[in-house]
């Protein structure tokens, strides 16, 4: 069976052996040939020596979710070989290093073995042990290019870009590629049944990681203060922020920077710095993952109650506790929505691809200052640490930052008594002042204790209740201004609905198509934010059964919907995946089909 532009390749490598750049060159080459790809890193919480996998799904139809079943395995890690042999689907291919003969126990009758003496070739060609290691990776990419019909000139071009100015390196790498090609030409029938054909399906799209897009979004949104504490999988958000801030915000002459980044002593301090900077009128953010969110709770409550903007990017990973630190999940929804003690709730944003990451991060800063409250961007490891094919970034050159309601010295000069927590506009959002604005007017004492409209401490019950009600009114205002859900249909067509968000989107979209082929029609809604507005409620209202697809055990989004909306919980059916791997369309189809039978 020939499968053109529709297969999954998996590379089994050892952590820290330089395979990452060779593997991503492979994915990029297919992308450059106009064919949609989804690369994914599957890696351990370790620096060197443990198995890592890199998986590339090639999909003519443009499906970007993960797909179960490996069509071609590139096995360069003896440690994981048994598991790797088993994971190939029947009829698939297994490429291995045949420098030593393959042991009998690895032989399956239903797959094709392609042995390439990778180490042997390297021993013969190179003397430097490091070169032997590195070029092994390039040689198998060369072999794959012949086997899968990937255009050699595209690979050459990629190498030329990667090693720009280092012509010698380019030549060495091209030569290594050729070694792989040559071996295939001399030993195998090629190309294989699975292969790549040039198409024009990519258009203007880009290949980029979600964390980088968040960091870039923060630069574009005018964030000036970043505070953070390293944690996988969020670390590269601030690293990319730093990279782009250095590039775009450093004075060429003086070297002075229009930003400040502090690596804090822990997440408590990181969010504290963010709160302090925002209180003082700078746009500031932090990025973390689940354990960090747990630590940040107290400050998030302060931000909510004292009404201080803050932006927190939570790149979710598999919990609870330290969980599986290098696996993905959407399991910080509850802890984020209600972070901190007392009656507290927070605005959440759910990006589902790099373009979303860029835009929603930028929006988060506007929302934080407009609403004077912490905003949490919930992305995840899959989105954050993998490259995704995405629409290109856009920025409206007319866009002005929404700095929210802030009185200037002039405003203060021309007004009566300033009341920090007065609901002057009836939308629950008060006016604030930055420290240092006016010599005699506008100062106030910010605190997490209860206070009256003029920020004066009080334990008067009526005043406390009035303030809490105003915060609730502000929450209602938030519903109107947070990003609206995306509907896949203009008009509802089915009694069945489906709700998803974030990285569950890719596989959900694919599952909808697959189910339609089986005559199951689903109306679909992609959530972009919390709090939920009327349209979310209406969608559930309008359907008899609504499947809620998410990547955690406890159906946290479903709980949030049930908790926040006046709906019948029985309507909401859980579709869950929480094994740490990105959810697949097959899994969704299976779960939904199972429920359709029993319903």
């Amino acid at each position, binding site marked *: 069976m020939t499968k053109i532009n529709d297969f999954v390749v998996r590379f089994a490598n050892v952590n820290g052996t330089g395979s990452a750049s060779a593997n991503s060159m492979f994915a990029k080459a297919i992308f450059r040939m106009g064919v949609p790809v989804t690369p994914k890193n599957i890696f351990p919480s370790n620096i060197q020596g443990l198995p890592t996998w890199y998986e590339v799904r090639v999909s003519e139809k443009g499906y970007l979710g993960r797909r179960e079943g490996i069509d071609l395995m590139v096995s360069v890690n003896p440690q994981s070989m048994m598991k790797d042999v088993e994971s190939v689907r029947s009829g698939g291919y297994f490429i291995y290093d045949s420098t030593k003969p393959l042991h009998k126990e690895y032989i399956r009758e239903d797959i094709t073995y392609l042995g390439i003496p990778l180490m042997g070739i390297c021993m013969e060609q190179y003397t430097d042990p490091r070169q032997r290691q590195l070029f092994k990776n390039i040689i198998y990419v060369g072999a794959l290019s012949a086997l899968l019909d990937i255009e050699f000139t595209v690979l050459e071009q990629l190498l030329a870009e990667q090693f720009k100015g280092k012509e010698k390196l380019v030549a060495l790498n091209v030569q290594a590629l050729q070694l792989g090609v040559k071996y295939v030409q001399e030993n195998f029938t090629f190309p294989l049944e699975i292969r790549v054909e040039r198409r024009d399906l990519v258009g203007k799209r*880009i290949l980029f990681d979600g964390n980088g897009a968040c960091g870039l979004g923060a630069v574009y949104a005018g964030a000036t203060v970043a505070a953070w504490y390293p944690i996988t999988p969020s670390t590269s958000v601030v690293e990319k922020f730093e990279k782009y801030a250095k590039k*775009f915000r450093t004075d060429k002459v003086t070297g002075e920077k229009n930003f400040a980044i502090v690596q804090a002593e822990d997440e408590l301090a990181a969010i504290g710095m963010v709160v302090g*900077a925002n*209180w003082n*009128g700078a746009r500031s953010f932090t990025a973390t993952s689940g354990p960090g969110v747990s630590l940040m709770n107290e400050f998030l409550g302060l931000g909510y109650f004292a009404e201080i903007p803050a932006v927190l990017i939570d790149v979710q990973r598999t919990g609870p506790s330290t969980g599986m630190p290098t696996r993905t999940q959407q399991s910080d929804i509850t802890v984020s929505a209600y972070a901190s003690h007392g009656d507290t709730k927070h605005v959440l944003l759910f990006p589902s691809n790099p373009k979303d990451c860029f835009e929603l991060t930028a929006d988060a800063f506007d929302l934080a200052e407009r609403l004077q409250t912490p905003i949490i961007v919930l992305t995840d490891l899959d989105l954050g640490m993998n490259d995704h094919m995405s629409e290109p970034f856009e920025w409206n050159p007319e866009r002005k930052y929404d700095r929210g309601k802030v009185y200037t010295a002039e405003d203060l000069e021309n007004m009566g008594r300033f009341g920090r927590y007065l609901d002057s506009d009836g939308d629950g959002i008060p006016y604030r002042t930055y420290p240092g604005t006016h010599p*005699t007017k506008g100062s106030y004492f910010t*605190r997490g204790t209860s206070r009256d409209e003029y920020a*004066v401490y009080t334990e008067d019950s009526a005043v406390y209740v009035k303030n809490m009600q105003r915060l609730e009114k502000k929450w209602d205002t938030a519903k109107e201004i947070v990003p609206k859900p995306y509907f896949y249909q203009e008009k509802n067509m089915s009694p069945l609905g489906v709700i998803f968000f974030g990285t569950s989107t890719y596989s959900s979209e694919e599952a909808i198509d697959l189910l339609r082929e089986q005559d199951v029609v689903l109306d679909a809604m992609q959530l972009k934010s919390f709090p939920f507005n009327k349209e979310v409620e209406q969608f559930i209202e309008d359907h008899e059964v609504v499947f809620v697809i998410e990547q955690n055990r406890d159906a946290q989004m479903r709980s949030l919907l049930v908790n926040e909306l006046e709906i019948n919980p029985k309507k909401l059916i859980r579709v869950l995946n929480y094994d740490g791997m990105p959810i697949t369309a097959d899994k969704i189809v299976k779960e939904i089909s199972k429920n359709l039978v029993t319903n």
Partner: protein
Amino acid sequence: MTYVRPTFRHPDLPKNNINFTKKDYEGALSTLCAGCGHDSISGAIAQACFELSVEPHRIAKLSGIGCSSKTPAYFLGNSHGFNTVHGRMPSVATGAYLANRDLLYFGVSGDGDSASIGMGQFVHAIRRNLNMVYLVMNNGCYGLTKGQDSATADNGSKSKAGSVNPFNAIDLVGLSMELGATFVARSFSGDKAQLIPLIKAAIKHPGFAFIDVISPCVTFNNNVGSTKSYDYVREHIEATSTVDFVPIMEEITADYEDGKEITLHDGSALQLQKLHQGWNPEDKLSAMIALQNAKDKGEILTGLVYIDPNTNALHDVLQTTQTPLNILKEDILCPGIDALEALNESLR
């Protein structure tokens, strides 16, 4: 009880160089216990700012949680204040300082707030050399939660309930020196003559200025047997020197024959008279030895313990622009669409 003072201003009140009266540096009426050491310190802070002619709105007050951390409500009513969460004032101060390098940051904390729950943030604020004053109102106990021992309570000191503290005290002065603070002082809430010049010098110091102020808690820790009681402190205080602060351009009149003058960053001077033997506040080692000797004798060494007037604060280290970050606008902050298009192109 009313928390807001009547706004009546006496027309004849003396004014400082920028035309503010002392009242302009006062805050709301204190709700602390009568006689609490913390109130005297609040008064000293207000007085120091008045005398220095600091524009009240150019100061930002920050604190954690505790009786001590409530005090920023009771001084500098025309300054923004932020009563943060327990033990976390240093991080909020860090963020605030990063956002606007042009304000003066005055942090107030307690011994529980800094030496227990907030120890981590305290040491890192020193390590980063924030340009701020960090004043701990040290009463050796948790006042606000009714008198439990704190980590600065001396080994062997007795609480009001009669129990004896079996643990060693953390000495924040020694610790901050060890961590590289470039202005380290200790004083006593009852000694305004010493405290006010120290606060003034701390405000002028261009880096992290730490002042540990022994401040007896009259309600829970002023009993016989407590080393943070008024009586104990009065009997065992050992000043490193008599301190006087001379603002820039002012004529130096005092006689400081056996003393020392330290020129601060902006040209003003700190005069130290009657120096403690064998101790030089610009020599870290001799300062540490003096501190240790006093401790061994059960004495409380007060005054300016150590100073290095030339110091690089965090913004200098980070090479941040001289313009406060919080006033930068889109034109400077946003790289624009051409840069974005180029980036898109590089990702294809």
